[in-house]
């Protein structure tokens, strides 16, 4: 696949929480229509990196660019940047006081100032596409975890973001519910949505990602096409990580 133009560019990004260096010099370019999977142990910095891209965390050093424009400059309007990105959280983070439809509408109507009727048409379309037709008026807590996460994906995608950031979107789910959420992500991939996903599902990374990056102690120490990365990793750390996953029956 010939790379499109860069959508997200990460240059030498570092981030520490107190003394603890979580990101220790990350470089990564994600091109249009590309899906990049971030793999690595818990605490390797996958989630923090995604949160930094969405400006939910401040970075210490380096730059992050969105469509060629530096977004980590203190003078940048963070709200405007976030409007161009979609974020799906591990714990769904649906709004419990709003029904399914209103969860999807909030970003469109309040964040993007879209007229309600137009927003509602789009929200209903998306919910139907992710198999949630008829659940629009339900409260999130009446839904299964898999359904809740699909609502969260619809909510993040409703605003047609330039890139979707998916933070371990299946980690909180019962095993039998993982498939339906992965199907929704696959659906986005088929549409050519640019995405960066932190994941523990190696099978899924192999299927959806164009590229897999292995994070270890705050650095991307190895990256490549999923086939090679997951079958014949070069670095001993990557081999060890994948072997552990295999032993735990996750790969």
């Amino acid at each position, binding site marked *: 696949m010939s790379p499109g133009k860069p959508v997200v560019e990460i240059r030498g990004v570092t981030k520490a929480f107190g003394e603890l260096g979580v990101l220790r010099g990350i470089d990564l370019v994600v091109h249009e229509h590309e899906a990049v999977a971030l793999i690595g142990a818990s605490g390797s910095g996958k989630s923090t990196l995604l*949160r930094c891209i*969405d400006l*939910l965390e401040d970075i210490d050093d380096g730059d992050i660019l969105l469509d060629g424009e530096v977004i980590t400059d203190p003078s940048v309007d963070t*709200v*405007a940047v*976030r*409007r161009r*990105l*979609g*974020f799906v*959280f591990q*714990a769904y*983070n*649906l*709004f*419990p*006081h709003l029904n399914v439809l209103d969860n999807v509408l*909030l*970003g469109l109507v*309040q*964040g*993007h100032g879209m007229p309600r009727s137009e927003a509602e048409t789009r929200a209903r379309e998306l919910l139907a596409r992710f198999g949630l037709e008829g659940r629009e008026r339900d409260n999130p807590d009446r839904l299964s975890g898999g359904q809740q996460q699909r609502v969260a994906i619809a*909510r*993040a995608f409703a*605003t047609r973001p330039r890139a979707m950031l998916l933070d371990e979107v299946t980690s909180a789910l019962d095993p039998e519910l993982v498939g339906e959420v992965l199907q929704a992500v696959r659906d986005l991939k088929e549409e050519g949505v640019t995405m960066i996903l932190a994941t523990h599902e190696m099978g899924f990374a192999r299927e959806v990602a164009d590229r897999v990056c292995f994070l270890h102690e705050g650095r991307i120490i190895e990256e490549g096409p999923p086939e090679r990365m997951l079958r014949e990793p070069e670095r001993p750390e990557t081999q060890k990580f994948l072997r552990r996953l295999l032993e735990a029956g996750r790969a």
Partner: protein
Amino acid sequence: MADAAPLEGAARDRRAERAAARRARSLRGGAIAATSTVVFLGVVAWLVFTSPGWPVVRDSFFDAEVFKETFPDIAKSFWLDIRVFLVVEVAVLVIGLVVALLRTVRAPALFPLKLLATIYTDLFRGIPTILLVYLIGFGVPALALGEAEDGSRPLDWLPTEPVVLGGIALALSYGAYVAEVYRAGLNSVHRGQRDAALALGLTETQALRHVIVPQAVRRVGPPLLNDFIALQKDVALLAVIGVTGTAFREAQIQTATLFDYTPLLGAALMYLLVTIPCARLLDRWERGRARS
């Protein structure tokens, strides 16, 4: 399969046995509760009714004639309590929310207001309500009526009506309490909710307004209702700055005229008529939340 039927029969018997045992247990429990209640109340009644002071108490607190004569006026006066309560309550809800939000926001430009909000809650929560009623009830009129040398009164726009001043004192005192209740509610909304709102492109203010405040308000319902009950009773405090016409004040006057304490019991009854339903409502509300 030959012994299937007898086994079934045995299973049925054991089920019946268990049900009977459960019934017996709950009957026994009910009987014990009833007996101990009767015994306890009996002992208390015996202690009270046989005490040497009882005839005096009976005549001065439980005089049916006096009750019949004074209760209608007391009940009528309670209307003022209700009106003061309602007005103050609305003010308290607004003050509480504004102060709580000021204490929660991070914008540096709002820091002076944040500091002010912190001082306000510390101060007004720390002073007894009755003292505040005195201080504001007598202090503000003194400010308003003080004359300059040329005879002008620069602060004469300040309210001097005791009922207004008393209401302000109550609102300030309870506003500080309710602000802390709201603040606890705001802090209890998970951080992920704010993240999700911001990630959707909402501003901090929009996130507060559409996501955090609505959830916080829902959570603090029961503790707020608790403070409402307390406020409802504390309207009686306005009597100390000469507010006339509340149920308590009316009962006080009747008591002083008739040399009989029965009117006070009439006033107590009026307060209970409001606070007990509130308390039951609160219980139901909390049970409902515990279930969900």
